[in-house]
């Protein structure tokens, strides 16, 4: 019999999952109307909508856990950057198409491994959200893997753009696996795996895609972490300014 988890830990864990999806979903939504071709514009917007949908489910569950009658919007629109718990990878700028694709690949592979485990969780609600999200993330992974391979093996220019992408993105990947004490508590209550326990499999899977893409697996050891502690890059503030402005100026406004 596993001990029942501290409510605060479960709340913070749900917010971590929700913030990851919301912030990356918001980032991808910036591609809408700017995609390299019509079909890809639609594809990126679809992925964005999937992620925002996932974040709504996690925020709703967080509200239920916290029990203060909050709504999804309270978490999304009325918290400041330091209260956001998303991994840094989710908030970094879109850059060019290759950068957004690489960021998506690294995140989606993590999300697939995490949700696969989480769909077996003893917390039935988390398990249900995870198994629904897993199907979406598997498609995101397929989409970003296929593109990584094509850009890596494409032309000299597309290959060098992927090298730029690695340069821009790679230093943030370790933050996905930086367990915090809430996550450790989830692990000891049997609710969720430690993100760090997914790392080796993640590396293996990413290596396969990089190999197919003729991209050398980066040996860069400089990493930035801190998302779960609310220590974000400067970019998150700008995202929140865009995303939260209307609700902050007209609280509760609807249209």
């Amino acid at each position, binding site marked *: 019999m596993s001990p029942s988890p501290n409510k605060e830990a479960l709340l913070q864990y749900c917010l971590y999952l929700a913030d990851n999806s919301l912030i990356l979903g918001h980032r991808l939504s910036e591609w809408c109307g700017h995609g390299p*071709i*019509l*079909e*890809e514009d*639609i*594809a990126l917007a*679809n992925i964005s909508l999937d992620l925002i949908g996932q974040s709504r489910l996690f925020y709703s569950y967080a509200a239920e856990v916290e029990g203060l009658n909050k709504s999804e919007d309270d978490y999304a629109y009325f918290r400041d950057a330091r209260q956001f718990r998303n991994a840094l990878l989710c908030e970094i700028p879109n850059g060019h198409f290759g950068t957004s694709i690489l960021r998506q690949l690294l995140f989606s592979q993590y999300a697939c491994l995490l949700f696969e485990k989480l769909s077996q969780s003893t917390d039935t609600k988390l398990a249900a959200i995870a198994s629904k999200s897993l199907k979406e993330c598997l*498609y995101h992974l*397929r*989409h970003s893997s*296929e*593109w990584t391979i*094509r850009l890596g093996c494409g032309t000299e220019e597309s290959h060098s753009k992927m090298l730029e992408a690695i340069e821009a993105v790679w230093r943030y990947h370790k933050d996905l696996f930086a367990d915090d004490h809430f996550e450790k508590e989830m692990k000891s209550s049997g609710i969720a795996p430690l993100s760090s326990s997914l790392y080796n499999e993640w590396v293996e899977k990413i290596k396969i895609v990089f190999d197919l893409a003729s991209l050398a697996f980066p040996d860069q050891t400089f990493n930035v972490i801190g998302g779960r502690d609310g220590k974000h890059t400067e970019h998150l503030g700008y995202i929140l300014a865009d995303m939260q402005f209307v609700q902050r100026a007209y609280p509760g406004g609807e249209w």
Partner: protein
Amino acid sequence: MSDNKDKNWPSWEVFTQVKSGAPHEHAGNVHAPDSELALQNARDVYSRRNEAMSIWVVKSDQITATSPSDSGPFFEPSEDKIYRTPNYYKIKEKVKYESITK
């Protein structure tokens, strides 16, 4: 023109099946550099609200089609010979199963 052809991705015709056993029907087309990405684009463009359970894509230039100028020789000859269709023939009252066997 040829320059343009090199830069643009080929066009693919998309066929979607709405339920198991139903025929794959033409849904439209997408641009894509290869068949896998054509499938993904077709999924994103024509089944983003779960409209399909199976998708086929085929390169548009692999389809051989009749041209509008063919429509005379191809289709019209069948229109003016109504005796080609069975409902042209009236079945006489007398010719009933019973009367034949008697």
